């Protein structure tokens, strides 16, 4: 393996692993959503397909596959067909810069566990791609040619744009503190030394703003107004059916996984655990263990996403905008100024 193949083959393997893990994750998050909601409401949840309903995502997938793909008469067809892809695509390519572990050594070669390991602008890339994801919502809603879809799309777009500011400022205060856009450096800054703690403790304000904004950014309850079914049927995906609807569905859950990974990397020490060093387990098993720890943390975050959804009622639209612009945005600015002032007066502790 020489030359360009030494780069291409490991990258290809990593992409396959990540796509497999994320798509399985998406499938089983939908099952977890239904199981956890059933548990919270004292029901049994899906339990017919396979043991404990474990084959339910497969059954759902087959059902979506065989459903009729409907295009409404009023739809603008090329855009209508493109929009679901524009939702799913950004959700998947963000994983190119998310590191999911330390590194593994196989046959004397060390492979860092990230698809694009040398990327020192990971955070900017993630923000750039996630700022594109609003196109899918807007175009889907508009091209359907239905008033409910259009309402949902306009709501979705204004919500995503409003809360992106909070996310950006919260992330920037972390960047200011660590002095880097590199996920690896930010993770390294949170563990493995005296006084280094996970950032959700020293940057609690940024953590709160970021987490609340993430819920709005992924259109999850209590901020799921773009698809508020009691008001606008299904929002921007009202008119979609079959596999195209499934793509919106997968996009939403893939976005949840990305958002969880973002939270874990910025505020919960990435793949590290307190008082544990992966060097103890050797170059191969240590790397694999770090990957397992990282995905377990993501799973905990996903559980919290689901927990919140089945606990809190939906906001009213003006409340959502008030929260975003009058509460979270000033809070994020305040936090940013505080961090900057601290750095100016005291420097890094």
């Amino acid at each position: 393996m020489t030359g360009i193949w030494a780069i291409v083959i490991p990258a290809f393997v990593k992409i396959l692993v990540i796509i497999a893990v994320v798509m399985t994750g998406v499938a089983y998050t939908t099952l977890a959503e239904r199981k956890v909601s059933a548990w919270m409401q004292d029901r049994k949840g899906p339990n017919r397909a396979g043991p404990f309903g474990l084959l339910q995502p497969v059954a759902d997938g087959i059902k979506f596959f065989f459903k009729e793909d409907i295009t409404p008469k009023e739809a603008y067809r090329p855009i209508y067909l493109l929009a679901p892809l524009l939702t799913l695509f950004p959700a998947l390519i963000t994983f190119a810069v998310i590191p999911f572990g330390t590194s593994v050594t196989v046959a004397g070669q060390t492979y860092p566990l990230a698809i694009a390991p040398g990327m020192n602008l990971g955070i900017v890339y993630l923000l750039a791609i996630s700022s594109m994801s609003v196109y899918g919502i807007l175009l889907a809603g508009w091209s359907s040619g239905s008033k409910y879809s259009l309402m949902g799309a306009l709501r979705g777009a204004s919500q995503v744009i409003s809360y992106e500011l909070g996310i950006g400022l919260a992330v920037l205060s972390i960047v200011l503190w660590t002095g880097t856009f590199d996920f690896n450096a930010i993770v390294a800054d949170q563990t493995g030394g005296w006084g280094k703690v996970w950032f959700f403790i020293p940057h609690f304000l940024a953590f709160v703003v970021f987490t609340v904004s993430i819920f709005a950014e992924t259109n999850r309850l209590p901020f799921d107004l773009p698809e508020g079914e009691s008001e606008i049927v299904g929002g921007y995906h009202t008119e979609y059916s079959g596999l195209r609807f499934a793509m919106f569905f997968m996009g939403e859950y893939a976005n949840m996984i990305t958002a969880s990974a973002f939270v874990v990397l910025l505020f919960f020490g990435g793949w590290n655990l307190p008082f544990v060093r992966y060097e103890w387990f050797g170059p191969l098993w240590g790397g694999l263990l770090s990957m397992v720890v990282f995905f377990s943390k993501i799973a905990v975050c996903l559980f919290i996403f689901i927990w919140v959804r089945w606990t809190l009622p939906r906001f009213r639209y003006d409340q959502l905008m008030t929260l975003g612009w009058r509460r979270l945005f000033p809070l994020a600015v305040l936090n940013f100024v505080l961090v900057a002032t601290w750095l100016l007066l005291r420097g890094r502790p």
Partner: protein
Amino acid sequence: MTFAVVFFAVAFLAFIGALTLVFHRHPVIAVLGMAAATVSIGVLYVMLHVPFLGLFQMIVYAGAVMVIALYVIMALGPEESGPQVGTVQTVLTYLASLLFLLHLYRVLIKSEIGPMPAVDEAFGSIQAFGGALVSRYAVPFELASLLLLGAMVGAVVLSRRQWQ
């Protein structure tokens, strides 16, 4: 080789996007064309060793400006419309475009065309970028922010008048 292939693919996409913006009759498609053009230009910046600028081009133009444009067009209800001809405004627009084209041509014949010069590691890094922004280009930077502030105040005033 790979570089040339990627360059021509991206440049072609930017070109098609720009043409779509100018010539397509449907405003939504025109805006999408411009979004495609801005993303392609972002990729070109990345190829010119300024990945930071390229990514910010995507965040600001494709992620914010074009989304707002799309939003406004959708909220107003898009209609296909032919080109307007013969008004004073269009004549002035054509004149300004012609001047800009001449200027572009002048820049093009003045610049040397050849292989890309080698640059050191620090070129295009966030540190270099930020340093230039607050030292050498501090005045243009502040002027631009003043312009944006003016635009913002103007927008607030206009919308206030409409409410009353």
